[in-house]
């Protein structure tokens, strides 16, 4: 690891100020992604500002404002605490399942909610500093495009980058239309709708999100919904547990009188950001929740997939995963 200075921030304002003075400084939350990448020499900050003791951990119902009736989750709270909070388990079981599908017990005890959203891709070429990678070193090319790209994207990629975004939690947040609250150096708060938080690679794969340097994630807000009884997070991976998703699907339905009045489907492991399956969603609204309709929706979404040399299997896998996740959701989220 390269040398860096370490400071513990005293409050959120001091933390944000400290970062904005140094373009090479980074926040340290749980450290589970940042330290790993620093050991690999992928991340090279010369200053770490430890934000792990700043508070901002509460999970609470929102009484006023546009998200009234929803909940707010502290940006510095731990993944374990979010997954096990009574409000989240009761009203947003999809989110609890997605968090619990990620990493391991130890890592979830360390990982924070804000840090989870900002974890970087697991593309092996990104991790290996001797390989070309436009995300790590803009302009050097993409090792995966013509390389071993079994785990890479089938939607939204460009020649510049074909990496997928790894977080499970974020896939559920995308389906639940979360809003991210951030604070900048002038003390201003702004909110970013989840769909605008992460970016597709375009010409700038090095930029994962639309967060500016020094902006601190203070909270994640979830609007009220009627999905709790009919939702499921399905994660398909190479081994039964403790691995990143090949494909994952967050599925949530609202059913009234046997008809789907709202459908939310987001996919992980298929694109540079959580992939909202909008075509599939549109097809389901107003229909009955039958296997035939689930299949139609999955076909419609996956028709747009553009697989690479080694990941053609993800098209069929994604198709079946959408159907299965919807079936599980109808089953009350039970396996």
């Amino acid at each position: 690891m390269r040398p860096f200075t370490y400071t513990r921030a005293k409050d959120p304002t001091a933390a944000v100020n400290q970062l904005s003075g140094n373009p090479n400084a980074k926040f340290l939350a749980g450290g589970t992604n940042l330290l790993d990448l620093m050991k690999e020499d992928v991340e090279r900050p010369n200053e770490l500002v430890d934000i792990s003791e700043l508070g901002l951990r509460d999970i609470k119902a929102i009484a006023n404002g546009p998200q009234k009736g929803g909940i707010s989750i502290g940006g510095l709270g731990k993944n374990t605490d979010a997954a096990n909070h009574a409000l989240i388990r009761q009203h947003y079981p999809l989110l609890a399942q997605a968090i619990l599908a990620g990493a391991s017990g130890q890592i979830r005890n360390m990982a924070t909610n804000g840090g989870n959203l900002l974890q970087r891709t697991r593309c092996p070429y990104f991790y290996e500093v001797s390989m070309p990678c436009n995300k790590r070193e803009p302009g050097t090319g993409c090792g995966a495009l013509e390389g071993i790209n079994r785990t890479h994207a089938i939607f939204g990629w460009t020649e510049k980058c074909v990496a997928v975004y790894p977080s499970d939690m974020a896939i559920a947040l995308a389906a639940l239309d979360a809003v991210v609250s951030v604070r900048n150096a002038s003390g201003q708060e702004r909110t970013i709708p989840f769909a605008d938080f992460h970016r597709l690679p375009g010409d700038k794969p090095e930029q994962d999100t639309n967060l500016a340097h020094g902006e601190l994630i203070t909270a994640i807000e979830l609007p009220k919904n009627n999905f709790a009884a009919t939702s499921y997070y399905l994660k398909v991976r190479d081994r039964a547990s403790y691995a990143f998703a090949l494909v994952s699907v967050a599925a949530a339905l609202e059913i009234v009188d046997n008809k789907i009045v709202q459908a939310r489907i987001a996919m992980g492991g298929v694109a540079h950001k959580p992939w909202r399956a909008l075509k599939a969603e549109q097809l389901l609204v107003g229909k009955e929740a039958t296997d035939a309709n689930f299949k139609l929706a999955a076909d419609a979404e996956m028709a747009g997939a553009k697989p690479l040399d080694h990941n053609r299997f993800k098209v069929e896998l994604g198709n079946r995963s959408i159907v299965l996740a919807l079936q599980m959701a109808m089953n009350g989220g039970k396996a």
Partner: protein
Amino acid sequence: MHDENDPSRLTEDEKKLFEDLMPEDLDEILDSGVNRRHFLKLVTLAGGGMLAAQSAVAEQLLTKPLSSSPTELSSATIENGVTVSLKVNGTTQKLVVDSRMTLLDTLRERLELTGSKKGCDHGQCGACTVLVNGQRVLSCLTLAASCEGKRVQTVEGLAQGTTLHPMQAAFLKHDGFQCGFCTPGQLCSAVALIEEAKNGHASYVTEAIRKQPAPVQLSNEEIRERMSGNICRCGAYPNIVAAIQEVHSGKPVEQTFNFSA
């Protein structure tokens, strides 16, 4: 005289060990200093058990740190030194650490608590699992500097004097290890898991996720999922699960093996 800090040279002890073990490769190693690192890695990896048992020199070599690291370092010699005070297994420790130092390296190299193991050093194996403020975490991805004021419990802190922790006793009864490398991390994880179940924590395989958190009785499948962050290369898993099930349920679980007569 050799210089212990010259990374390219083998020490006399190391040469002797090498000659014992792989005489045909000695010349090459002596010629190309770079291989020394590989050699040392090889010895340390294979080390703990097999080699040490074979050679008295190896034993000496492996039980002392490979490079000289005085326990007390002054802040002047440490790059970006950070003062940190933490409570390890009940004793308060005040140290100056390099900002880059992980909790794992601090425990092993500065506090001489070598129970916690370094397997992957990247969060993937769980061998370095310890309890911080009562929760299981990975010490290889924790900066020591970030532990100010925290309580750390390692495998060395589980037993009460000579009385083993019930989980340690159960691991022994059920033969929950072979080489023992992953065992300290498995034990810390298992001890934490019992608490997590008491507190009603859910896992990905928990069915009634919407139910209000209440103490849970864990199936073997649940235990496996919850222990998945701890990898055992010898594959002692069934016995580990049996040991955890026994402590968790409070009922004896039948041993699946017998000692030979």
